Structures are given as C-alpha cells and as structure tokens.
C-alpha cells in the first residue's frame, strides 16, 4: 500500500468513502460477528470470559518480560538452524530482506499476508530494486492487482464485487473467467501455483513467536502461508517483537480465541509451527530459514504503562467488526494498513500522534471494542491517553494540538467551572438564540455549531431548572 499522505486526514477520507462501501463493510462484519457470537454462545459466556482473561494475562506477561523472551527466542531459533536478524526500523528491515534477495539472486518473491510487511512498505522497497513481489493471500492478491492496500486486515478485498474481480482478472491477468467466486478462486489458484513453484524467496509474517523453542506460528485458511514457507528455497519471516508468547501452552488459550474472534471459526485451516529449517533434506522445505525481529516503535510503545497493552493485539479484527465508526467508513479511511480501533492505537504510536492526525478522535468511545477484544485490551482507555498526548503532550511526544486550542480549553474551563459565568452563559444562550429558534428547535447555527446542525437540529436552549428549584424551595 502506498504511504498515505501524513498527517492522516480522517475527516477528508471519511468524506470520500465510496457510497457502496458502508453496506459492503456491514455485510462482511455482520457475518463475522454472527459466526463469532454462535461460537461464543456454544462455549458459554463464563468460559469465554475466563479464556479472555487468560489470553490477556499471558500476552501481558510476555510483553512485560519481553527482553528475556526475545533472547530466549533468538537462542532457540539459532540452535534450530535458523538465522535471526534484528531490525530497529522499517528501513533496516527492508535492507535486510533486500540483501537476502540479492545474495540469493532472487527475481521473484511470494508473500503471505503480513501486516508487519505492509507497515514497513516492504513490497515497494523490493519492487524499487526490480524484484517482483506477489501477494498470495487471495484478498491481498486482488487488492495488489488494483494497486491498493487491504481494506480489512482479515478480508482485504471484501468490498469488491465478484464482477469487479472478474473484470480485474480480465484486465490484469488476461484471463476471462465468469464472475463466480469458485471460478475466480480457481484462476488465482492456478496462477499462483506457478509463482510459488518458481519464486526464489518466500516471505511471511508471524502470528506468534514462541520463545520456548523459537517457533514461528502462522494462522491461515488458504494454504498460501504453508506454500510461501515450504516451497521456495529460502524463507524469511518478518515478525514484530510484540508477537512473542512464552511457550506452546500459551497457544492452547490464544488459538482458542483467535479464530473465533476473527471469522467465527473454531480454528483456521492451517496453523503452522516453524522452528528453523527442516532438519533433513528429505523433509522438504526451505534450505534457509530467516527471522527478522522488527521493532519499529514497539519498544517505545512499551515505555508508557497506560498504552503498553496496545501490544497485546493478536490481529483478530474483532474490534474492526464491532466498531460503529469502522462500519460506516471502511478500512481505507484510516490511512494505515491496520484499521479500526487497534489500527488507531498502532498508527498513533508507530507513526506518532502528530503524523496520525485526528485518528485518536475518530471514536465515540462507545467501548464495544473493549468488550469484544479477546485479549482484553482497554482500547478506549488507551485512546483517552493518546488524546491527552495530542492535547498536552507526555513523556513520549510533545503536544500535537495547536497551542491556541489549549488556550481555548483553559478559557472554556474557567467559564464552565465558575458558577456565575456558567449561569450567565446559560442566560446568554437563551437570549441569543431567539432569532434562530423555531418550535423549540434550532435548525441552523453558525460555525462551529453548524457542524452539528448540518446533520440534525439542536434543541433550543431552555435552562430554567435553577429558578424553578428556587421558587419551589421558597414555597416550602
């Protein structure tokens, strides 16, 4: 996905959402939420809450002991014959992969879906050096042909109709297939098989990294994750340092909540556990196995206890599905590969609040995300802290909001907390509204309140409780 212009302008993006997008989004999210709800009901709410708490606790334990677990993972991967690389930022990660590609004279790369690789712009870095990059997750393959990024972290192309996809295949692949999901999928299967078999390098992300044995875990449905990590002679996994889990036992909990929360499946088709390259040639698999541990701001996120739990995220997408804002605008509005509530948290902290623009405010704080998150991230609490960072700055960043706003807030708070000023304001509003008032409503107001009235009228200002109370008290 091309880097959106910074700072991210959520409002402008929201004003340009294609008219059909909200309905497409809602159709997709309703399906996932429905499937999820059925599975949660089958488990029983009590067990589900126990699992959520356990998932939260194991992830929090992992990231609050991250240094030790990272070292343990590195030792284990190396012992298993894999190679560990550390990338402080996107540029370093891209350099590492480029060098690997050059060393092996790679002309073509096959990739499975990885938000980390989108975050660092890996595809562009490789393509700039003349290396062909092929996204192999069907949804990613489709949006790649369109030149777009994913519209949803789990179903990247949900917003496209099968007619649009058929037209795309006709145009970009020269294949004339009927607009049926089955036939279109077969087209992709055939095309991509050749790519898997001839690619010099397979790139994946990692859903989890098990410190105990240095094992990369990938959770997929299509099989492209297995193909990318088995068929090409070299495999590299780009894994954020936040993906660490202590041991295999942790996954007995996390795997129970991940697929249920994401798509409403008990478990996905394929969960792979990769611990270095095959121990013998006859096993078949890559000759070389590489792990790139990506920081890119995660170690900094760790620093602030109030926002640290951002890193618990297991990328299930449930918060996207339940978010009423996301459901009305879709993923592209957020200007970042990860969208929805967790995307706001990541974008605001990986890019910084200045670059993230108004993202922390793109929420009504309804809290539905908190309740659905399988690892119990206190998303709205973190949003409130990020808003505080924007408005006033903290130990991570200085305030991004203009200082005029701060002055305004100070003046406003003095007016609002000084009783006589507050009461004066109430009276003035009742008086000033007179020419605009009709039938106890104010249909049109000047800016900035025009932002309210453009959508619906405001009730008329009608404060008279205090005088009523006083009259009543005097009567008694």
């Amino acid at each position, binding site marked *: 996905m091309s880097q959106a212009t910074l700072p991210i302008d959520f409002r402008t993006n929201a004003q340009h959402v294609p008219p059909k997008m909200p309905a497409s989004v809602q159709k997709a999210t309703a399906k996932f939420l429905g499937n999820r709800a059925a599975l949660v009901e089958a488990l029983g709410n009590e067990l589900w809450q126990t699992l959520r*708490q*356990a998932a939260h*606790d*194991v992830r929090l*334990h992992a990231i*609050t*002991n*991250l*240094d*030790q677990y*990272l070292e343990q993972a590195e030792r284990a991967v190396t012992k*298993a014959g894999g190679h560990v690389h*550390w990338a*402080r930022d996107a540029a*370093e990660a891209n350099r590492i992969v480029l060098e690997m590609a050059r060393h092996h004279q790679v002309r073509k790369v096959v990739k499975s879906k990885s938000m980390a690789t989108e975050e660092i712009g890996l595809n562009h870095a490789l393509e700039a050096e003349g290396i062909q990059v092929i996204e*192999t*997750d069907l*949804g990613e393959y489709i949006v790649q042909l369109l030149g777009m990024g994913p519209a949803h972290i789990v*179903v990247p192309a*949900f917003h*496209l109709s*099968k007619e649009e996809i058929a037209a795309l295949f006709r145009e970009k692949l020269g294949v004339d297939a009927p607009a049926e*999901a*089955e036939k279109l*999928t077969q087209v992709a299967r055939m095309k*991509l*098989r050749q790519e898997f*078999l001839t690619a010099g390098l397979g790139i994946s992300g990692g859903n989890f990294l*098990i410190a105990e044995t240095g094992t990369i875990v990938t959770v997929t*449905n*299509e*099989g492209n994750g*297995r*193909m990318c990590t*088995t*068929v090409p002679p070299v495999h590299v996994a780009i894994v954020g340092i936040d993906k660490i889990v*202590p*041991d*295999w*036992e*942790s*996954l*007995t909990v996390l795997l129970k909540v991940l697929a249920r929360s994401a798509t409403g499946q*008990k478990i*996905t*088709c*394929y*969960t*792979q*556990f990769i611990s270095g390259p*095959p121990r013998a040639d*006859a*096993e*078949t698999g890559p000759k070389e196995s590489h792990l790139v*541990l990506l*920081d890119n701001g995660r*170690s*900094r996120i*760790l*620093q602030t206890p109030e926002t640290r739990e951002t890193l618990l995220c297991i990328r299930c997408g449930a918060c996207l599905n339940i978010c009423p804002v996301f459901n009305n605008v879709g993923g592209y509005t957020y200007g970042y590969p990860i969208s929805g509530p967790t995307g706001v948290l990541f974008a605001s902290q990986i890019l910084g609040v200045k670059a993230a623009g108004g993202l922390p405010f793109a929420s009504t704080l309804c809290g539905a995300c908190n309740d659905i998150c399988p690892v119990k991230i206190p998303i709205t609490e973190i949003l409130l802290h990020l808003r505080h960072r924007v408005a006033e700055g903290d130990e991570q960043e200085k305030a991004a909001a203009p200082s005029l706003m701060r002055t305004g807030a100070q003046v406003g708070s003095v007016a609002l907390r000084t009783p006589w000023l507050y009461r004066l304001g109430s009276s003035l509003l009742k008086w000033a509204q007179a020419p605009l008032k009709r039938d106890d409503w104010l249909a049109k107001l000047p800016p900035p309140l025009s932002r309210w009235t453009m959508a619906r009228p405001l009730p008329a200002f009608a404060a008279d409780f205090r005088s009523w109370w006083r009259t009543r008290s005097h009567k008694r």
Partner: protein
Amino acid sequence: MSTNSAGEDILAKVRTSLKRGPGQPVAPVPSTARVKPRVAGAPDAEIELLFTEIGKLNGVTRRLGGRDDLKTALAELVKVEAVQKATCWATPDLMTLDVAGTLKALGVEIVSPTAGKHQVAECELGVTGVDAALPETGTLLLRSSPERPRVVSLLPRVHLAILRRTALRADLHQAFGEAKDAGYCVLVTGPSRTSDIELTLTLGVHGPKALYVWLLDES
C-alpha cells in the same frame, strides 16, 4: 553468535522501557494465564466427534475395518478423484500397509516426495498418516521428518490422511506437549478455504481442495 548491534539496541530499549536489567529473570507465567486441559470422552465418542467436525468443514471421513477395506477405498478414491499420480509419506505404518504398492497396482504413478517440487505438484493425491487427532475441532496434527515430507499434504489437490485410534488426543495441551520439540508441525483442519470473494466460501485455494480422513481399525 557475533555481536549484533541492532539486537543489542532493541533489547536495551526494551529493558529501558520496562525498567528491567539485563539478565533479570522472568517471573513465572501467572496461573490465571492457564486454562484446564480437556478431559477426553470415551474413544468411540471421540471418533464420532472428530468425524462430525471434519464433516462440517467439508472433509470426507470413512471407517475401514482392515486392509481389504483400505484397498477397496483406495480404488474408489482413485476413480472419483481421477488420480494419475500420487505421493506418500514413508512412515513405518504406511509402509507396512503398502499404500504405495496398492496405488501402483491401480495404475497410479508413485512420485517420491523428494523428487522435486514441480513433480510433486503434478500429483493429484498425497497420502499421509496422522500424528495427533483433536476431536473438538476436527484437527489433524502432522509432523515433519524425512519420513513425513511437508509437501505431501500441501501440493496435491487431494489429501488423504490415514488415521489410527492411537493418534487421538484430548486437546492441544496433550498434542503440543509431544510435538513441541519435534521440529515443524502443522495443524490441518479441513480442506483449504477462503471467503475473500464476496464472503462466499470456496474450497481449494492454495492447499488441497479435498481432505479425506480414513480411520483404519484392524482386528
């Protein structure tokens, strides 16, 4: 391993953020982070559950009473799935059952899994055993070893898994305990699928399009 300045840098930043010193030990994983393992039901009920779950995901299950049953089933499979080439695991069980021999006798060309990915990709059928079977989700755990090449369950259009009762495990707790130090493994739950196009479920994206799981009981 040579000094990696990027690694040291990152670890130092992590430690500073967490206010932890180098070599500071990890507290044990809190007990609230663990859940109780599942207790398995009676073996027949477990098989029933496993087969039901596999069926829900469009896998095809079958019970075989012995080697004659196996031969009959293989003949049917070769016909139904138009199998011309096949590749197999070389585990002692499959060797003893002589699955490769039976297929050969049915006119199927047997391709060695180590013959190269292009050749294996031309096989319609891949035959494996099952290292662990998890009834609750209809999941098969397949390990990887010289006798269990990974491509066998991945590249061919049809995956046939021959299951023994002894592979049944109560849940992932048990299965993981055995698998974690044995190198690569994959959990397979149904044939490959996607809902990426208009949320319509389609099977056989990149992995196998069909999964057959046959329970072989022998008297």
